[in-house]
């Protein structure tokens, strides 16, 4: 017998999601992920001054506004002839890094961990402990994590002035500067963050944690009392006990655009496409499909550089306001797991080799990136020379095309712009969760989250907690998806 389970609204994520699944003999046989809101940002961009992209696109999303700011600035930079001073690279990386790491922290404590307090898990040994730690608003770890989150906010205040929606990132540099006073404050704030990570989250130093490069060593680490009584240890043990290491296998194809540009070329986080082996990334291979999306066009798919956004609410058979991006005709997973695999992080790579892609590896990859970023931010601060400029000579003569690619917290973020007479002609945006949460494409290929739900066994149709856990492990941002 087939049951249809609809979760609408699916909450504790950014934006608005509806999920529909078909269950046959407790196994998911069909999954539909629907973005249910259209706001039309791309339609607002035509005819504007290209610099307006810096004001408009961050406002697509409250949780990853600075990532859009970086993508917009890079889009304009690629269409201009400007030079960016070295300091501006570090400033931009600090803003992006603070946003991404803060998002990961918030995701773990406020969005994902509360699922463990679901009554479904009452039968497990970890239940009382996770209720005490992770109950929304009142959990004792949640309270401490929200305090630690302020470290990122204060860094953001120093380097970006305001957040969400900073306008500090321009094509030729940052409007903000640091001097010896604010540099010292920033380093002090990062020390406070280190205290939280060491005492509350890890139960060991960051160095000791980053020494763990294999699954076996992780098992060894978990035996220590300090480690297993900290939030990460509690989480890993709970996840293994509840079987999250066998839940939510993705498409096993991963994409990263690369991010955190460094002075003199190169990026801190590399780009690439991974499907059992690593390939160079080529943006020409991206297509956005609209077969099951509420949009109208003469063709089923396009490269975003000539993308079209015409809403069509009456479209028969469509079920999402999200388009369906595909890479070389593949449905691909983006986000921290993709980045950790493509950057060959030793622990996460080994974990994926041993137990594959699943909720546990996806969550650990995100937390691993948060830890690495909190370390890296100190190095970027130390890279800044307060006596050297932060802002290069601006220009407003635009070439006809611009592309800005970066990595937001949830994965690949790209902006594509065409201009005419120094005005925006077309502006197209593909967001991370458009990749992960996409509907089926013209060939019927499901999106990555849809795919990861298929074949999952549901223990209780009245409380399909497996669906919650799998979807939230991708950390969807529907505000972005349905821009």
């Amino acid at each position, binding site marked *: 017998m087939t049951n249809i389970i609809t979760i609408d609204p699916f909450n504790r994520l950014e934006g608005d999601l509806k999920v529909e699944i078909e269950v046959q003999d407790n196994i998911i046989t069909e999954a539909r992920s629907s973005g249910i809101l259209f706001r039309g940002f791309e339609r607002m961009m035509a005819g504007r001054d290209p610099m307006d992209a810096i004001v408009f696109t961050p406002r697509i999303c409250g949780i990853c506004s600075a990532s859009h700011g970086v993508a917009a600035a890079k889009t304009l930079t690629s269409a201009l002839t400007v030079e960016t001073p070295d300091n501006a690279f570090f400033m931009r990386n600090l803003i992006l890094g603070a946003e991404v790491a803060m998002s990961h922290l918030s995701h773990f404590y406020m969005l994902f961990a509360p699922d463990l307090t679901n009554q479904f898990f009452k039968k497990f040994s970890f239940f009382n402990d996770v209720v005490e730690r992770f109950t929304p608003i009142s959990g004792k770890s949640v309270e401490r994590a929200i305090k630690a989150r302020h470290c990122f906010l204060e860094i*953001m205040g120093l380097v970006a*002035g305001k957040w*969400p929606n900073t306008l500090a990132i321009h094509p030729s*540099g940052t409007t903000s500067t640091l001097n010896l006073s604010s540099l010292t404050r920033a380093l002090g704030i990062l020390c406070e963050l280190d205290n939280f990570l060491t005492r509350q989250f890890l139960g060991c130093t960051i160095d000791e944690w980053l020494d763990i490069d294999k699954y076996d060593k992780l098992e060894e680490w978990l035996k220590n009392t300090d480690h297993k009584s900290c939030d990460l240890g509690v989480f890993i043990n709970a996840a293994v006990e509840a079987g999250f290491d066998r839940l939510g296998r993705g498409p096993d194809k991963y994409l990263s655009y690369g991010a955190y540009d460094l002075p003199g070329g190169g990026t801190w986080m590399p780009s690439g496409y991974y499907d059992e082996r690593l390939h160079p990334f080529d943006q020409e291979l991206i297509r956005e499909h609209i077969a099951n999306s509420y949009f109208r066009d003469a063709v089923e798919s396009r490269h975003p550089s000539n993308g079209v956004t015409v809403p069509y609410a009456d479209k028969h058979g469509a079920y999402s306001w999200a388009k369906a991006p595909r890479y070389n005709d593949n449905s691909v997973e983006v986000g921290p797991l993709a980045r950790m695999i493509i950057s060959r992080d030793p622990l996460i790579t080994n974990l994926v080799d041993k137990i594959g892609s699943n909720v546990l590896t996806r969550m650990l990859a995100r937390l691993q990136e948060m830890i690495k970023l909190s370390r890296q931010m100190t190095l970027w601060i130390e890279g800044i020379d307060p006596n050297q400029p932060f802002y290069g000579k601006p220009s407003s003569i635009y070439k006809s095309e611009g592309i800005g690619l970066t990595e937001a917290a949830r994965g690949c973020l790209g902006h594509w712009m065409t201009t005419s007479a120094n005005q925006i002609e077309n502006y197209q945006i593909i967001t991370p969760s458009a990749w992960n949460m996409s509907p089926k494409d013209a060939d019927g290929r499901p999106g990555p989250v849809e795919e990861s739900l298929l074949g999952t066994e549901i223990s209780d149709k009245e409380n399909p907690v497996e669906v919650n856990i799998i979807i939230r492990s991708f950390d969807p941002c529907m505000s972005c998806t349905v821009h």
Partner: protein
Amino acid sequence: MNNLLWLQGASCGGDTISFLNSEQPSALTAFKLLNLNILWHPFLSTVQGDDVLSIFQDILDDKVKLDLLVVEGAVPNGPNNTGRFFMFHDRPFRDWLTLLCNKAEIVMGVGTCAAFGGIVGSSKNINEVSGLQFQNDIKGGLLGEKFLAKGGLPVINVPGCPSHPDWIIETITALLKGWLTNDDLDELHRPSVFFSKLAHHGCPKNEYYEFKASAHRYSQQGCLFEFLGCKGTLCESDCNERLWLGRTGSCTRGGFPCIACTSPKFPDGQLPYFSTRKVGDVPVTLPRDVPKAWYVGIAGVSKLACPNRLKNNAVSFKLVKDK
């Protein structure tokens, strides 16, 4: 207990994120302080799916009292005024909004989108949105000019893109404690206490402003008003006195121009963002109550009187010492 329902319309979620950025009190402390019972919040609650609809239904059936309804995001009316750009449980979201607003003791529009339409209503409102009780600066919106919540006040607007967390929490506090009356609101239904100041007040670049020592390029220390588009002299907010993010920053402290995001005509009323439009020598962003003729006279004299210290530092990104 005060029952709170928080809804997101055509929204980026940025006001929820800003709310979580609060300190003195923090969001968690505010929940305790104000004895708030969150019926549902889309970002924070564990309740989801049909159970959310049961909460709505209990409110509509008067089984649960709705003390406070907070809305962020614009009201989605498109396409062709059907509301189908946002279907919430198979019904246009704006229909839920209308029903629930009529059951609430207090309705707050948080962020410029909920208050006035905001950025989603830009570009000649091609995407068909409105604010709760305004379309830009014109009364009306979803609920109509005459709407009063059950407690007797109109929609209380706390704009900003995003709204400052203090404005949100302090407004909620004042409303629940009965401190905020009609007399405390301006003509845009904003609490005057936050929106009668200018973002210009408390700006660290004020001495540069006084002597018209202006930055020519971003990152320089001089004032951004004369050339680089700053609207802090028009923007009704107390940003530079209050500061953001643990009192560490503000727009102008981050070196970029205020774009008057609390304004009912944001964002298209603020164009261009990064350069200053002038009529003759006078920036159109001159504070509304400063007579233009006086401005021209005073600006000319103060430029002549400008000390070298300011002249030199205005066009430098780092401190220039007096020689």
